[in-house]
Every structure is written in C-alpha cells, then in structure tokens.
C-alpha cells in the first residue's frame, strides 16, 4: 500500500443549516484513505454522519443547505470539492458509483429496469442502444438475476427486494467504476438474501478489482466482508483499524461499547414455565385475503397470509415468532389480538375471544397490548407524553381521581426508566430508544397479561436495542407478563424467547424450545435461516 490511495479524505468537515440559523456540524475533521482494491467499512449508529460522508464524496448534498467547513476529498489526487456540477457529473457513475439502502425508491417506478440501466452506458461510454442493451443483459446475468433477457423489460415493482438490489448493483457496475460506495446495501433485505448480496459484492469486487466503501450500522455483517473498518461516532472518526485488530483488541471506548451491544442471553433459560398454566391458546388460525379479478370481482384465489396455525402461550412465557418479510408473522399477531379478522378459535385467560364483537372486546383489550416496530409512527405527534401514556388509563379506569391517575403515570414512567419532566413534552423531542420506552410505558400502565411485541427493536441502534430488550425482560420478570415476540432477527430471539416458532409463507415451519431449535434445527428452511443470520458470527 505504498502507492497513492484511490480516495483520500483529509480532515473533512460538513455542516448543515440555512439562512441565519446556526450551522450544525455533522461531520467533524474526518480523514480516511481507501487504497485500490480495498474493502473499507464505515460503521456507526444513526446520526453518526456516515451517510453524509458518502454523499459528500459524490457531492450529492443540497448545496443550499450544506457547506464544507474544511478539508479535501482527493480522488486519484484531484480535489472533488473544487469540481463544479458538470465536472462532477462525469465522475459520478463512471469513476465512483453508489448503491442505496432502499432499492425500491432508488429506481424510478415508471421506467423499465433496462432503460434505467442503459442510461449510464449511453451517457458515459457513448455506446449505441443495441450494444448497451447487450451489456446490460450480461451485467444482470453477472449479478445473478435469472432470465436477464426477460427481466430487463420489467418494471421495478415486478422484482423482489433482492432482485432489485441486484439490478441496482448491476447499474452501479455498468461503467466499471473504480470506487463503489454501498450505503447500507442489505439493511432492507431479509437475512437469507443479505448473505447472497454480500457474497455477490465480494465476488464482483474481486473480478472488477474495484475499491468498495461499505457504510453500515452492523458490525457483524462487515466482519467477513471488509479489509479495514472505520468507526464513526457523532461525526467523528473514533477508530480506524483492520478487521482482526478491531474485533480482537478494539482501541476506542465506543468500539468496545458497540461490540458489547450484541444481544446476549437475558437469562431466559433459567425461567420455569409451568406447562399447564396457559394464558393464550389459538387453534387453526386462518387469515386469507381474497384475490379478485375481472369486472364482477370474481373470487379467483386467496393470499394465505396465515394458514392454519395453532399455538399456546404460558403465563410469563415469551414465544418468539420468526420469519422473513411476507411470512405472515405480523398478520398472525394481529389475528390473535382480534385486530384482523380470521378463522379459528382463540382462547385468552379462559375467555373466548373469537366470537366476541369489537365492542365487547374493547373492555378486555387492556389485558393484551401491542408495542410496534416504528417508534416514530406509533406515537401521535400532537399529543404530549402524559396524554399518550395516560390515554389507556382514562379509557379503562375513568373512576380514578386526577391524583391517582397522575401517580399511575409516574409509576409507569419510572418503570421504563423515563423522567417525569418529560411528561409535558411532545414525541418529536425524543430519540428512537426513548420513544420506544414511551410506547412501552403506554402499554404497561394498564398492567396487561400479554404484550405483542412487533419487531420492537428493529428500528433502533444496537446499543439502544440491548437496553430495550433488558427493560422488557425486567418487566416480564416483575409482572409475569407473557410476550409474543415477532422479529426477523434471530439473535434477538435467542436472547429473549423461551420458545420459537418459525413461519414461512403463512405456514408453520418448525417450533420448539429456543436452544433446541438453535442447536438442532430439523427443518431445512430453519437451517438456511440460521446459517444466514449467524453468517458473520
């Protein structure tokens, strides 16, 4: 590595703001080099400035709202910050290409895949349409898309998430860039597909001999992939280390903190679950969505979102429901709480739920509650925290005096580790982790027997994730609450659940005690899922 690096960022600072408002510094004096053919991973939690760095290299920021306070970005020795828009356009796509996190929104939905892939070839390589089309088919084939000559004329929505990401990679590689910037390329994908995409990237990197700058929040994912890892925290580069060095002997406090944030068992295996003490029992749950076609809406088939699933849940037990997106795990949860119509019988705490009307259910609802995935959309933006937390209490216990009411709110806030000063504030003032705590406080104030946790930690940073899991576990032990824990993250399940249920396409694949299932998965799909999610460990 004696030669000059391909990309060299020298004490770069980026600030956001506009008009008279003070500028906020989002990247602070960051320096890093990428050599030719090197795979560098930039790791950090949300708000660490890692994506801003990547966008700075391509100058994709809104120039009116951002400024570069200091530093240089040298690409093959030339400072990209001094380029104007038209010079920059020649660099983008040809020398430096980028793939984005969300493959659905990165493609324009009204154009066919092929047209969007051909565009950079026409622009940068000056090819004619025929040869460009041939090249694109080759590229799609190379990225592992089956029947590329047919897929090239598909619209983005006709491809699955994994296929779209492959097409995205094909587009990025079209002009054989020297540097590929991948901004969380696998975050939006299912685990089995994540592994495939990573392997593809690794493969292509070797073939094309390009450099890759991989941006991610997931340390484990890059362990296999990267040569070198840079860790960012709040706009600063805190550690620059090779992979082995970083995992074996991390230098910076924050890296150690990140490494320790991986979910680890929360002592579920020591719990004694009384076999006969069933809280929830569901038999033959079916939820079909009809497919209708033609002028008269003839019923031509069903989407089997949940297909004949039976389960039981004991008091104080956590049942993990695992599956990839579209496996029907959330729909199953909604059916069990009667928020979605379904067939089958549901018995909760010796009462039948399936034949009750919504009106009859209303007073029972305080016994079974939900915590949602996205803490940003699950709190009404126009209500104060006090109103949000106290809402269920007001509906179910109108007899409380305002003093008792306030005391119950304080108790709930205290239990989830929040301050009482926060009560008069609004949700937008809080971080993701705090919001999720608020959502939990809203639920436990009603002292429920069952909580449905629908991916409660997926939208959170790893270090926060661990705290929230520990909180949930504490509450379970204290109040003997049962959890239905829906997630795609097997590591979280392993830490939290007593028993696990694996779902695929609406049907049950395998079920068993957590450790048994992790150690000796019987079903082929479960094995595939496990090996994919434990890929990097």
């Amino acid at each position, binding site marked *: 590595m004696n030669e000059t690096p391909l990309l060299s960022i020298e004490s770069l600072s980026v600030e956001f703001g506009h008009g008279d408002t003070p500028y906020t510094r989002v990247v602070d004096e960051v320096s890093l080099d990428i050599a030719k053919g090197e795979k560098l991973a930039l790791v950090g939690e949300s708000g660490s400035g890692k994506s801003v760095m990547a966008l700075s290299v391509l100058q994709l920021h809104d120039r009116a709202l951002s400024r570069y306070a200091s530093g240089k970005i040298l690409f093959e020795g030339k400072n990209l910050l001094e380029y104007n828009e038209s010079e920059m356009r020649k660099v983008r796509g040809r020398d430096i290409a980028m793939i984005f996190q969300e493959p659905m929104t990165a493609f324009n939905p009204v154009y066919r895949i092929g047209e969007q892939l051909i565009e950079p070839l026409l622009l940068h390589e000056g090819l004619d349409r025929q040869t460009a089309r041939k090249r694109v088919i080759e590229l799609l084939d190379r990225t592992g898309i089956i029947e590329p000559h047919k897929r090239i004329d598909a619209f983005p929505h006709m491809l699955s998430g994994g296929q779209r990401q492959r097409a995205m990679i094909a587009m990025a590689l079209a002009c054989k860039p020297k540097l590929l910037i991948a901004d969380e390329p696998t975050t939006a994908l299912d685990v089995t597909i994540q592994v495939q995409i990573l392997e593809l990237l690794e493969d292509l990197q070797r073939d094309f001999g390009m450099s890759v700058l991989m941006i991610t929040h997931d340390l484990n994912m890059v362990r296999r992939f990267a040569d070198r890892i840079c860790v960012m925290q709040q706009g600063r580069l805190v550690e620059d280390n090779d992979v082995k060095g970083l995992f074996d002997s991390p230098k910076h406090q924050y890296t150690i903190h990140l490494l320790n944030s991986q979910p680890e068992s929360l002592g579920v295996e020591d719990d004694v679950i009384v076999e006969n003490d069933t809280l929830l029992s569901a038999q033959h749950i079916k939820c079909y969505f009809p497919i209708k076609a033609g002028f008269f809406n003839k019923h031509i088939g069903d989407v089997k979102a949940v297909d004949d699933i039976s389960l039981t849940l004991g008091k104080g037990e956590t049942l993990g429901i695992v599956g990839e997106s579209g496996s029907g795990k959330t729909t199953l949860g909604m059916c069990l709480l009667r928020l979605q119509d379904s067939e089958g019988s549901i018995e909760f705490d010796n009462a039948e739920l399936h034949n009750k009307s919504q009106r009859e259910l*209303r*007073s029972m609802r305080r016994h079974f509650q*939900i915590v*949602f995935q996205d803490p940003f959309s*699950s709190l009404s933006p126009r209500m104060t925290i006090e109103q949000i937390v106290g809402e269920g209490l007001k509906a179910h216990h109108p007899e409380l005096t305002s003093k008792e009411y306030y005391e119950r709110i304080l108790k709930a806030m205290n239990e989830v580790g929040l301050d009482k000063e926060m009560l008069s504030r*609004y949700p937008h003032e809080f971080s993701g982790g705090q919001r999720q705590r608020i959502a939990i406080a*809203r639920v436990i104030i*009603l002292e429920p027997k069952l909580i449905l946790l629908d991916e409660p930690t997926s939208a959170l940073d790893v270090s926060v994730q661990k705290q929230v899991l520990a909180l949930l576990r504490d509450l379970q032990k204290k109040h003997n609450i049962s959890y239905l824990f829906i997630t795609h993250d097997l590591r979280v399940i392993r830490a939290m659940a007593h028993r696990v249920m694996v779902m695929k396409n609406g049907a049950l694949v395998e079920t068993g005690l957590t450790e048994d299932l992790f150690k000796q998965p019987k079903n082929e799909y479960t094995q595939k899922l496990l090996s994919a999610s434990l890929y990097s460990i």
Partner: protein
Amino acid sequence: MNDNNFISSERRIWNRFRNNKRGYYSLIIFSVLFILSLFAEVLSNDKPLIVNYQGDYYFPLIKSYTEKTFGGDFDTEPDYVDPYVRKLITEGDNWAWYPLNSFRYDTINYQNTHPNPAPPSAHNLLGTDDRGRDVLARLIYGFRLSVIFALVLTAIGVVLGVIAGAIQGYFGGRLDLFSQRIIEIWASMPELYLLIIFASLFEPSVLLLIILLSLFGWMGLADYVRAEFFKGRNMDYVKAARSLGLSNRMIMWRHLLPNGMTPVITFMPFRISGAILALTSLDFLGLGVPPSTPSLGELLAQGKENIESWWLSLSTFAVLVGTLMLLIFIGEALREAMDTRKGG
C-alpha cells in the same frame, strides 16, 4: 434550535405565522376592523349616544323617548337628524353627543341639497345611495354582516365537512364508496338555479341563505378531511389506540382529528373570503338578502345602475378588495406556517 425543541407544534406554527409579517399584520388589521364593526351602532347611528337635556341625562341609543320629552310636538320617537330636534337638544345648556358618523344604514338624509345619489360632502363622507342613505354607514354595517355571515357559513361548513370526511375516511369500504357517489350527485346539482327557485318560494333572508349555501359548502372540505383520515387510520398510533381499547369516536376525536386539521385550518381564510364573495355576488344579482339589509353586493349593484356616481362603486370596491386581500394574506401565512417541512 434549542428552545424550539420544548414547545408544542401549535406553538411552533404560531411562531412561524408571526414571522410572516404580512400575514400577521393582516390578521391584526382584520381583527381590529371586525371588532370595531361589531360596535357599528355606536360608531354610526342616527341617534345621539348621550343627551343632556335640562340637567337630565338621556340615552336614546338604548332607550326610546318621545319627542315631547325634549319639548317637541309629537308623541313618537324623535328624528334626531332633523335640524329642529337637533336644535332642541343642543340649545342653551343642553348638549348631545352624536356618534362619529351620524347615520344608520337605513337613515335617509332628507336635508341633502343634491339629488340622490348625492356625492361626498361634509355630511355624508362617502355620499349617499340612490335612496339618500349614507354610503359610509351602509359600508360599515355591510362589512359586519358579510363577515359574520361568512364566519357562520364557514363554521357550519367546517363542522359538516369534518364530520362527513371523518366518517368516510375512518370507516372506508362500502360506506365510503356509497357516500362518495352520493356526494358526487349532490355536488352536480345546479346551486344557482336552486337559489333562484328558493328566492321566489320563500321570503329572502340571511338565515335562508346560510341554510342554502351550507347545503353545498361542506363538500370540498370533506374530501380533504377524508384523505387525511384515510391516511391516518393506518398509522401505528391509531392501531395502538385501537389495541388500548379506545372507542372509534375517541380515536377519531383524539388521534385522527388533531392530525387531520392541517387542510381545515389552511383553507379557513380562503373559505371565509369565498363566502364573502358568494354573498356579495348573490346580493349583486338580487338573489341575496332583503333590500333593506345593508349589503356590499347591493351597493355594487347600485353602482352599476348609477355608473356616474363613482363614490358608490369605488368605495364598495375598495372595502371588498381590502377585506378579501387581508383574508388571502392571512391564508397564505397560515399555509406557510402549517407547512412542517419549513424549519424554525
């Protein structure tokens, strides 16, 4: 940045609104004018506010006295504009305190030396209309009537529109499908013909106009509220509220309505100005309020009849344009203030 984090979104909207100087001052001017016009009887009236007659105080504005009380000839209420009465109550030690503009909207000035409509003079600051009534007085009362009419119409329209939109958007499905079709049929009814028919069937009155215009005025808003509720009902916080066991009414009132008010509030000033314009044009066409009522539209119609009497059309036009402009400035500022993409 720092202080802003601890204030409610309503407060933030108000701050952004205040930063828009044009809209903010428009709101102040409009409010002052409207509040002043609420006291039109005190500002512009043909009865004195206070009369001191032979050492006693009289309040003709509130109480009615006979002419004989002030030493006149008749047992009826005196015409305080009459120079004879005026002389009686201001002679010697007596004094009378007249309003700033000493005409009511229906006072006919018989003392005018010019034929009606009379041009502006020291007596009638903005002249008189074709029946000898003071234009300034009619403008003040007409402005008040227009604004109150518009506020009432808007309030009814908002309530009806929000309820209709909320029910359609929240429940959706078949209910939404059918009520949408009904609205489409209802909206295609020729409003103006109905007004003409009703104007000939019933005695024209302000109340009748409000009822008729309300029947049609809620539909535009219902669409927007429906869309907001449609969007909102799938949000997680609504699902969370349902799983807390809240009733549909509570969810709509506490969760969806506050988040769906943006189009309602943003459209409010534009709806008010639309209502003022509607009343004015109906009056102009002679389909509006009864002829004795002070109305801007009726003055405009007079201006058209007497095109050479410039003070009729010009002054009414000025009042109308001024009012509508203030409302539109307020609306613009509100729309910008409600735009959450703006910082601050």
